[in-house]
C-alpha cells in the first residue's frame, strides 16, 4: 500500500460506504420498521450482509428487485407489489423506502409511487393497521452512508412529526452511535429526570437478546407515536458538529414547528461531554447527578494516572466525520497527538471543527484530510510514523503494514467481537476508550520488549 501523496481519480480502499446503507441503519432504529430499498435486489443483499457482519444480529431489508424491464419502463409496479407483499407478510409499523443508484438514475418518482400505492391499496393498508410509509432519496453517487443516515432521519421527521400537542419531552438525534451508547444515553437522560424521544434508537433492534421465539419484527426502536409528537417537544438536541450547515431533523423541527434546538458535538471525551451535560443541566434545571459527576471525577483521575503511557503518542484517526471530530477532541485532551484526521466524505466542516476541538490544547491542529481513501491515508501515515491507528476494521491492513496497533471503533468492525457493544460516549465511554488505549500501548510495549515488564 506504499504510495505517493498525489491526487488520484480512482478510489482505492474506500473509507466510506454508500448512502442507502446509512438510511437502512437509521430506519432500523424505529419500532416495527422494515427498511425497503427500491432498486436491484443486490443492494439489499450486500447491505444486509455488511450491517450483519458488524452487529451479528438479523437485519431485514426488503427490495423491489428491479430487473431490466423495470429499468426501462420504471420501477413503480415492482415497488407497489413489493410493499404489498411486505405488508401482508410482516405487518410492519413503518416501511422506510430508500432509493438506490438504479432508481435515481432512471428517474423514478418514488414519493409519487408511494402516494399512488396508498390510494390504490387503501383497504389493504387499513387491514394492515395503516403502517407509515416514509420515503428518502439516497442515490449513492451523491454522498455516502452518513448522509444517507441523516437524510433518513430527516425524512422521518419531515413526513411524520406534527405539533398537535405540546409535550414536555426532549428530542435527541444522536446520529450513528452504538446500541451500547444509546443505552447509556437513555440512562443519563433518565438520571436527569428528562423524558425524551431518541431517534433512531438501535439499542434493542440491533442488539437483541437470545430468544427461542423469533420476532419477525424485533422489539424496541423509537415508538412511532413518539415520533409524531416530536414537533410539539420542548427542544431538540442534535449530536454532531458536521451537520451544522446541512438540513437536519432538528432544523426541520425548528423551521416547521419552532422547536428550539441545540447542536453539540458528539460527546466523546471529557470536554464534549461537559458541553452536553451543561445542556442537560439547563434543560432539566438540575445539577449533574452525583453518579455522573463521580464518573467525571474518576475519568480525570484516570487521565492523570494514565498520562505517562499515552503522552505524545502519535495517532492516525479515520472514519465518519463526527466520529473523527469526537475522537480528536478526546485524544487531544488525554495527551495523544493526533497527526492525521481523515474521512472518506467531503467533510465541509471537518477542518474547522478539528481546529475548534484542538484549540487551547494543541499548538497546531493535525493534518486533516477529507474525501480520502485508505490508499491516501496510507501514503500520509507512512510519512507520519504514528504509534497507533484509531478507526474501523478497514484500517487493519495498514496497521499491519506499519506494525502499529489498531484501536477499533466506528463502523464496520468485522474482525473483532462486540463492536456494536462498544461504549464510547459520555464520561463512561471516555473511560472505556481511555483504558483500551492505555492498555493497548502497554501491551505493545510489553510485547516488543526483550526483557519484559511485569509491572508497568
Amino acid at each position, binding site marked *: 500500500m506504499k504510495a505517493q501523496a498525489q491526487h*488520484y*481519480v*480512482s*478510489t*482505492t*480502499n*474506500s473509507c*466510506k*460506504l*454508500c448512502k442507502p446503507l446509512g438510511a437502512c441503519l437509521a430506519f432500523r432504529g424505529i419500532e416495527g420498521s422494515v427498511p425497503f430499498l427500491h*432498486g*436491484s*435486489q*443486490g*443492494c*439489499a*443483499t*450486500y447491505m444486509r450482509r*455488511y450491517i*450483519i*457482519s458488524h452487529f*451479528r*444480529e*438479523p437485519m*431485514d431489508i*426488503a*427490495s*423491489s*428487485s*428491479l*430487473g*431490466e*424491464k423495470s*429499468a426501462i419502463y420504471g420501477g413503480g409496479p*415492482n*415497488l407497489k*407489489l*413489493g410493499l*404489498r*407483499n*411486505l405488508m*401482508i*407478510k410482516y405487518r410492519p409499523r413503518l416501511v422506510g423506502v430508500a432509493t*438506490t*443508484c*438504479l432508481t435515481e*438514475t*432512471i428517474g423514478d418518482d418514488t414519493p409519487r409511487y408511494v402516494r399512488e400505492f396508498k390510494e390504490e391499496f387503501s383497504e389493504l393498508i387499513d387491514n394492515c393497521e395503516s403502517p407509515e410509509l416514509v420515503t428518502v432519496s439516497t*442515490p*449513492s*453517487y*451523491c454522498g455516502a452512508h452518513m448522509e444517507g443516515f441523516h437524510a433518513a432521519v430527516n425524512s422521518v421527521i419531515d413526513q411524520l412529526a406534527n405539533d398537535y400537542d405540546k409535550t414536555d419531552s426532549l428530542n435527541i438525534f444522536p446520529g450513528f452511535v452504538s446500541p451500547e451508547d444509546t443505552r447509556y444515553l437513555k440512562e443519563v437522560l433518565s438520571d436527569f429526570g428528562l423524558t425524551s424521544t431518541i431517534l433512531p434508537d438501535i439499542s434493542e433492534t440491533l442488539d*437483541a437478546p*437470545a*430468544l*427461542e*421465539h*423469533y420476532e*419477525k419484527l424485533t422489539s424496541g426502536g423509537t415508538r412511532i407515536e413518539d415520533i409524531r409528537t416530536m414537533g410539539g417537544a420542548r427542544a431538540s438536541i442534535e449530536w454532531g458538529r458536521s451537520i451544522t450547515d446541512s438540513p437536519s431533523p432538528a432544523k426541520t423541527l425548528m423551521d416547521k414547528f419552532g422547536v428550539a434546538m441545540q447542536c453539540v458535538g458528539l460527546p466523546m471525551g471529557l470536554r464534549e461531554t461537559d458541553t452536553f451535560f451543561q445542556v442537560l443541566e439547563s434543560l432539566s434545571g438540575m445539577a449533574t447527578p452525583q453518579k455522573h459527576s463521580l464518573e467525571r471525577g474518576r475519568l480525570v483521575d484516570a487521565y492523570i494516572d494514565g498520562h505517562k503511557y499515552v503522552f505524545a503518542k502519535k495517532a492516525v484517526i479515520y472514519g465518519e466525520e463526527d466520529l473523527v471530530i469526537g475522537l480528536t477532541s478526546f485524544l487531544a485532551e488525554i495527551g495523544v497527538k493526533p497527526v492525521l484526521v481523515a474521512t472518506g466524505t467531503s467533510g465541509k466542516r471537518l477542518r474547522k471543527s478539528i481546529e475548534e476541538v484542538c484549540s487551547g490544547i494543541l499548538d497546531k491542529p493535525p493534518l486533516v484530510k477529507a474525501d480520502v481513501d485508505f490508499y491516501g491515508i496510507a501514503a500520509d501515515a507512512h510519512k507520519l510514523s504514528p504509534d497507533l491507528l484509531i478507526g474501523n476494521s478497514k484500517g487493519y*491492513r495498514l496497521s499491519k503494514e506499519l506494525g502499529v496497533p489498531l484501536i477499533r471503533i466506528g463502523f464496520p468492525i468485522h474482525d473483532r467481537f462486540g463492536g456494536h457493544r462498544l461504549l464510547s460516549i459520555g464520561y463512561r465511554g471516555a473511560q472505556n476508550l481511555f483504558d483500551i488505549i492505555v492498555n493497548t500501548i502497554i501491551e505493545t510495549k510489553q510485547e516488543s520488549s526483550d526483557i519484559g515488564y511485569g509491572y508497568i
Partner: protein
Amino acid sequence: MTLKKSSINQTVDKEKFVKEVVSVYPNKVAKKRLKHMVVKSDCESPEIEANVRTIPGIITQRGCCYAGCKGVVIGPIGDMVHIVHGPIGCSYYAWNTRRNMFRSREDGQNYLNYCFSTDMQDSDVIFGGEKKLRQAIQEAYDIFKPKAISVHATCPVGLIGDDIQAVARDMTQKTGTLVIAFNCEGYKGVSQSGGHHIANNKLFEQVVGKDDSKHVEEKFVVNILGEYNIGGDAWEIERVFAKCGIRILSTFSGDGSIDEMRRSHQANLNLVMCHRSINYMAEMMETAFGIPWIKVNFIGVRGMSKSLRKVAKYFDDPELDRKVEEVIAEEESQAEQLISVHRDRLKGKTAMLFVGGSRAHHYQELFGDLGMETTVAGFEFAHRDDYEGRHIIPTLKPDADSRNIEELKVEPDKTRFRPRISPQRMEELTSEQLLGAYEGMIPDMNQGAMIIDDVSHLELEELILSFKPDIVCSGIKDKYIIEKFGVPSKQLHNYDYSGPYAGFRGAVNFAEDVDMMINNPAWKLIHAPWDVEPTLRAETVA
C-alpha cells in the same frame, strides 16, 4: 454411515405444510411460490421451478448480477486488478467479504486485499463516466503494472450508456495490458447466476487458451472449475491431488491466477465442482479444445474418494489407480478416526441447507458422513438442471431474462483442439454418465425430503418451526435469524471464518465445527431459572 430411512421426515405433513406456508401470500404470489416447493417421493423426479424472478418485497437471499460476476467468478483471481465502475457501495461490499483465498505466485502479485472503484459522482452520472474509468485504469496500470485488469459495470453504468467495452479495448491497446470489461449491471438477470455466465463468457473469449508458451508434458493434468477456495478448500484438494500424482494446472477461480488460466487449455480433463457457476466454461472448453469434463464433489470423505476414483477411471492407468486407492485408504482411515467421535454425538440429527447453486447438494454428502440427515434443501440461484439433472436442459424454454445473457457460439479451435480420448472411449464414459453428466441434487436426496428453491425469509421461519432442524446451513444474512430461534446456523458461504471444509481434512474440520455448534451449552441457557414457561423445544421434542 448414512441414515437411509428417515424417521424425522415422516412426522411433518409436507403437503399441508406447503399449503399453510403459502397461504399468507397474496394469491398470485402463492401460486408462483408453490411451484418452487416439491417433495421427493417414490415416483419419478419431481419438477421444480427455478431461476425465475424473485418476488419483490419477499426478502430473498439472492444477490445481483454484479455479485455473481465480480464477487464470485472474477474477484478471486488474485493477480489481477479488479476495478468496479460505479458508485462506491458495490466495490466496498465486495471487498474481502467472500473468503476466496489467494497465495501469490513467484511474481509476488496479489491484489485481493484491494478495493478499486471509480466512485461515480452525480456529475459522472450526468455527463458520463467513461473518462473517469479511463483514468482509473491508467492509474491502476501506472501504480501496479498488473498482468490484467478487469472492469465491472454496476447499475448506473448500463443506464447512462457508458461503453466500457470500448474503453477496455482502447486501454488494452494503450497500456499493453489486457483490460477485460464485464457488463454485469446489477439489474441483469434474476440473480447472481447471470453474472456467472457473463464472467464465463469473457474469461473464455479473452483469457483461456491464449498462452501456448509453456508446453505441459504430464498426462495427469486437470483444471478444477467452480472451486473458489473458501477457507482454503482448494489447497486441501491440491494436497490430495499432489499426493496422487495429479497436477492441477489451473483453478477457476479460487486461488486463481490469470497466467494459469491462459494456459488451462492444455489440461486433459476438467473437473467441475460448482456446476451452476461454471458449467458454461466446461462446455465451451470441451467444444473448443476437446477437454472432457466430469462433475465432482470434494465435500465429504466419501465425496472426495468418489471424485478421485472418477478421475482415476477417466485416465485409465493402473499405476494411477493404485496410487489413488492407496491415498484414499490412508486419508479415509485418518479422517474416520477423527470424525467418529463427533459422529457419536451427531448421529440422527437433522440439517436443512439453503445455499448457493451447488453447496446445498455437496454438503449433504458430508452430513451423511456425520450420520446426519438432510430434511429440507434448496438453492438460492440454481437452475432446474442443478435440481433435476442435465437431461432436462433441452426441455428448458428460454425466457426474457435468460435471453438477455449472451450464449457464445463456440467452434473447435483450429490449432488447439485435440481429442483427449478415443471416440469409442468417449462414448463409453459418456453413456456411463461419467463425462459431461450431472444428475442434480434431487436424485441424491432421501424419500420424503423437501426441496425449496429461492427460499424466502418467511418460509425459512416456518420451516424451522415445523421441521425443528438441529442445524440450518445458510449464509450470514439468515444466520442470526435462525439462531434467534435457538437453532445453530452454519454459514456455508464463508464457513463462519473457519475451514477448509473440502477434502479429507476439511471433513474433519467440519465435523468438529458442527459438533461444537450443535452441542454448545449456551443453547440450554436461554431460559432463566425463574422462567417457568415451558419452552417450545421442550414441548415438541419430548
